[in-house]
C-alpha cells in the first residue's frame, strides 16, 4: 500500500466529556485508515458516539487523546483558526437536513463555497456547472431552496460538500429525512462523486438498506469501532460464496 493513497488515519483516538465529577468516554481508542475512493458506512445505536467521531474527523472538535491525520497533517492539535481553514479546504459536510441558505439560489449555494475559499471565479463557476449537471439539478440552478423537494435539496447539499474539492466527505445520516427510494438516489450520488473524484467518504446511517452502496461497514458500540465483515462479504463476494 502506498502512503500517499491514505487520506485519513485515526490513531488510538479517544474523546472524554466531563460529566459532573465523572468523565464519560464517548470514543474509546479508535484506529482507522481510509484510502481515496473509499466509501465507509458507520452504523450503531443512538448515543454510541458516531456524530462525535465525525465531528472530530471534520475538525469541529478536537480529540482528548490520539491523532487524526488528514492528508498527511495531524489536525488533532490544531488551533481554532487552523481547524476552520482545514474545514474550508479539506472537508465536505453533508448534514441530516440539507441546511441550505434560504436566500441563495442553488447556483449561489455552490458558488458561496468557492468565495469562502477565495477560489478563482471562473474555476468556481466551472465546478458549479459540472456538479449541477452530475447531480441532475440543471433545471433548478436559479431556484431558491424553498421550491425544491427534499431529495433535490439534499442533492444540492451534496454538490455544496464537493465544491471545495475536499479530501474527505462526512455525511451524518444524510438520508434520515428522505424515503427509501430518494435516500438511495442520494447515497448513490455520494458514492458516484466519491468514486469519480477519488475522495474518501464516511456516512453515518441508521438505514441498513443503504449499506450495499458502501465499500466497508463499521459498527460503533459504546465508543468502540468494530469492522463488520458480513457487510464486506456482501459487497465483495468471495469466490466460495458464488
Amino acid at each position, binding site marked *: 500500500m502506498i502512503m500517499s493513497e491514505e487520506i485519513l488515519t485515526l490513531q488510538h483516538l479517544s474523546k472524554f466529556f466531563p460529566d459532573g465529577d465523572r468523565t464519560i468516554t464517548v470514543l474509546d481508542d479508535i484506529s482507522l485508515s481510509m484510502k481515496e475512493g473509499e466509501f465507509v458506512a458507520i452504523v450503531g445505536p443512538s448515543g454510541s458516539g458516531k456524530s462525535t467521531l465525525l465531528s472530530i474527523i471534520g475538525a469541529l472538535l478536537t480529540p482528548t487523546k490520539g491523532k487524526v491525520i488528514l492528508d498527511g497533517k495531524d489536525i488533532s492539535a490544531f488551533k481554532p483558526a487552523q481547524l476552520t481553514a*482545514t*474545514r*474550508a479546504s479539506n472537508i465536505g459536510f453533508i448534514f441530516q437536513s440539507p441546511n441550505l441558505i*434560504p436566500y441563495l439560489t442553488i447556483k449561489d449555494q455552490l458558488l458561496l463555497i468557492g468565495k*469562502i475559499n477565495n477560489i478563482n471565479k471562473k474555476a468556481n463557476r466551472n465546478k458549479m456547472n459540472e456538479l449541477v449537471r452530475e447531480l441532475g439539478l440543471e433545471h433548478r440552478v436559479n431556484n431558491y431552496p424553498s421550491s425544491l423537494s427534499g431529495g433535490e435539496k439534499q442533492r444540492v447539499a451534496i454538490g455544496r460538500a464537493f465544491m471545495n474539492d475536499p479530501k474527505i466527505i462526512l455525511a451524518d445520516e444524510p438520508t434520515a429525512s428522505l424515503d427509501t427510494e430518494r435516500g438511495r438516489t442520494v447515497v448513490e450520488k455520494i458514492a458516484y462523486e466519491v468514486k469519480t473524484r477519488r475522495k474518501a467518504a464516511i456516512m453515518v446511517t441508521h438505514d441498513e438498506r443503504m449499506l450495499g452502496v458502501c465499500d466497508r461497514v463499521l459498527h460503533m458500540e459504546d465508543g468502540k469501532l468494530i469492522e463488520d465483515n458480513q457487510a464486506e462479504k456482501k459487497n465483495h463476494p468471495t469466490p466460495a460464496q458464488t
Partner: protein
Amino acid sequence: MFLALKEMKRAKLRYILLSLIMVSILFLVFFMTGLANGLSFADSSSLQKIKADYIVTNEEAEGAVINSELTQEQFKEISSSIEEPASPLSLTMSTITGKENQKDTDMIYFSVDPEHYADLPIIEGKNISEITGKEVLVNESFKKDGYELNDRLIDESTEKTMTIAGFIENQTYSFLPVIYSDIDSGIHPTKSNEGIYNAVVYNGAKTDIAGFDTSTNEEAVQSMPGYSETQGSFTVMKVFMFIISAFVSAVFFYVMTIQKTNQFGVLKAMGATTFYISKSIVTQVLLLTLFSLSASATAVVGMAQILPEGVPFQASVSLVLVTGAVFILLNLAGSLLSLYKVTKIDPLEAIGRSE
C-alpha cells in the same frame, strides 16, 4: 458582500421597512437640527456677528447684554481701563412706521459709536464708519419689504426720521431685524436716565475690569435669556432620536442574527470564518445607514425648498455630514452586539439539528 447583497435582495420587505424607520428618524433629526440652527440664527445672529472681540456688561446681567445697564460714568470707567478704542452698544426695540399701505415693522436698534466700531458685512451702500447724523444701516430684510437706499424711515415712538445709508447682511436679534444707528443721533428711544448703554464693545486683548463682566460674542449668545434652554432642549431631543435609531437597528440586526444562528453555524462548519460572516453583517448595516442617510438628507433638502419664508430653517452641509458620521458610528457600535453573537456561534450545534 455576496451574502449581504443576496439576502437583502431576497428579503427586500424587511430591509425596506427598517430603512423606512431609519429614514423617518433621520429626517426628524435633520429637520430638528435645521430648525434649531435657524432659531439660533434668528435669535442671536446679530450678537454672533458683533464686530468686536469682547463685550463688557455689568455684573448683575451675568453676560446677558439685553439685561445689562451702564451709565455714562461707567462707560468712561470702562473705556479708560481698555487700551483699545471702545464703542458703547445699546439695544433698543422699536417699530418703524410703514410706508403707505404697508404694515409697521418691529425691529431693534443696535446703536454704536460709528467711529469706534469695525466695519460690518454689507450688501449695499455705506458702511458703519461712513454714516453721519441720522443715517442708518438696515437689515437686508427691509430690502425685501420694498425699501431702497436713501429711503426715509420714521420711528413710531420717537417720531424721528432717518435715512437708509446701507443694507447689512442678514442680522437678527430675537427674531427682529437689526438697524445700526449712531448712538449720539438720538434716533432710538432712550431708556432710563441712568443706564443709557447696554454694553461696551472693543477689539483687542481680554481685559478683566473689576465690577464688570467681559465675555466673547459666543459667550454673550449663550447668556441670552432662554437661548441655551431652547438649544439644550433640541440637543436632548436629537440625542434621544439618535439613540432610538441606533437601538432600533441594533435590535433588528441582533434578532436577525439570532434567527440565523443555525445558518451561520452551518457556514462556520463549512469553513467560513467569523470575520467572513461579520463582514456581511457590517456591510448590511453600512448599506442601510448610507441609504437612509442619503434618502433623508434629500428629503430634508426638498423640504427646505417648500418651507414657507417665515420658518427659520438652516441646514448646512457640514451639519449633515457630522450628523451622518455620528449616525454611522452609532449603528456600527450597535452591530457589535450581533458580531459578538456571531463569535459565540458553535458550528457543532448546527450539525444534526434540523431546521
